[in-house]
């Protein structure tokens, strides 16, 4: 039974989900809805990772972004919640259009470069899978120093966030 999904369909579906959710994340009236659609957008990106032979990273994406960061965002939204904070920002008109123009130009130019360069990229056959067990050795064997630096970064971020969030009395 030939039930393998052509990669194009996967791509189209995931793109639609991700982009719509991303737009909604920025435009939703309620911040809570924004956070939820941000989560959906992240899940879409995780789907991309999976379809690009990086399932472990896809799972990492879901666990870290959707599981942790979105919870943090939700909690912060609820912490800073005020009636004003919920209202959609007024007076976006002129600047909104300008922002749209900048963003649009940038996206189109990048897409243009990609479209020009795209056909020249060597497309490797999909048969060569990247096993997840390869990730560990490369992580620890090839890049040990970034790992230590990352530990310092994590420590620094944790301490910094704690000190920032502390109430001075």
């Amino acid at each position, binding site marked *: 039974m*030939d039930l393998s999904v052509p990669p194009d369909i996967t791509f189209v579906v995931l793109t639609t989900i991700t982009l719509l959710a991303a737009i909604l994340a920025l435009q939703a009236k309620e911040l809570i809805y924004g956070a939820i659609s941000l989560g959906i957008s992240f899940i879409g990106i995780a789907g991309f990772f999976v379809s690009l032979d990086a399932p472990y990273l896809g799972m990492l994406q*879901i666990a870290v972004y959707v599981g942790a960061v979105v919870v943090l965002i939700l909690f912060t939204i*609820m912490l800073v919640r005020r009636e004003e904070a919920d209202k959609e920002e007024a007076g976006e008109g002129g600047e909104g259009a300008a922002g749209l123009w900048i963003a649009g130009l940038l996206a189109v130019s990048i897409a243009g470069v990609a479209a020009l360069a795209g056909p020249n990229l060597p497309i490797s056959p999909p048969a060569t899978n990247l096993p997840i067990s390869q990730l560990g050795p490369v992580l620890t064997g090839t890049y040990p120093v970034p790992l230590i630096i990352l530990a310092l970064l994590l420590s620094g971020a944790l301490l910094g966030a704690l000190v920032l969030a502390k109430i001075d009395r």
Partner: protein
Amino acid sequence: MNLPTTPAELLPFIIAVVTSHTFITLVIFPGFIHLTVVVMFLTWYERKLLARIQLRIGPLYAGGPGGILQPIADGVKLIFKEVMIPYKADKPLFLGIPLALVFLGALPFAVIPFGQHWVIANLDVGLVFIFAVTSLFPSMILIFAWASNSKYPFLGGLRSLFQQVAYEIPMWISALSVVMLAGSLNLVQIVTAQQRIWFIVPAFLSFIVFFIATMAELERLPFDLPEAEPELVAGWYTESSGAVFMVIFLALYMKLYLMSSLITVLFLGGWWGPAFLPQPVWFILKALVVATFMIIPRGVYPRLRVDLLIKVGWTRLLIIALANVFITVALLSTGVLSAWGL
């Protein structure tokens, strides 16, 4: 096998699909029907067991031996009850989140191997997949609590969030030693590696940590603060009624079964057992035993205070789990376990 082109080919095609292993795994055995039956059985089983502990009789009149048809009666009753949506509640979220909870509770069953060939999707990153999916629960619960626009759910949801967040990390890190022992994240391979010895022996400490963390994740007594009846009525699902309640209830028992299955896979040797019973039977029996041990404390223990609970999670369990990683490193590198082929 090709897709049918003429109507005459349709019937053989359907028969071929329905009898294919994939279809059976998806719909019947580790799939939907099996899940529904076991989850319904668990709701009855918990009530009956608790009743016995407390010298009561429990469900009796719904039919079958010991009122085993009680879940069906409950389901019919709840479906036809009125769904009350609280004033000013966020309606789409209030109705959508329970469905999402059931979905998330049932989705990880796709990667749990109930037997050597009884698994829906033999995923290479199965364990991490389960963790990724279960890590979505806290945010769902928080959103649901927020959506119902009522104070009890909100407080319960917050407690639930912090509890699950506090116990998720010890749970993962204690599972790490199993992963190190098996050298794989694929649940089928993890079980295969336990053919000679169940991982509960070399990783006993992490089994304890994992079990406690699981109990906390499931919000079962003594960790059931989010739904502490005297204080918070029913916690984050106080406002749910009728079908919404039924769906949430289903999701909770789904998660109970999921976690028992996960413990079975990680520590209790999955489907391995003497050959006089088929593999899936062994698996389900083990999972039910684990579930029993999770239910029993509900009849026995009081509950903790919320800040103590979170404190225990972060200070004790996390430290033990991290220490356990070092122990496993030591065990593996000194080769003590080589007798079992590890």
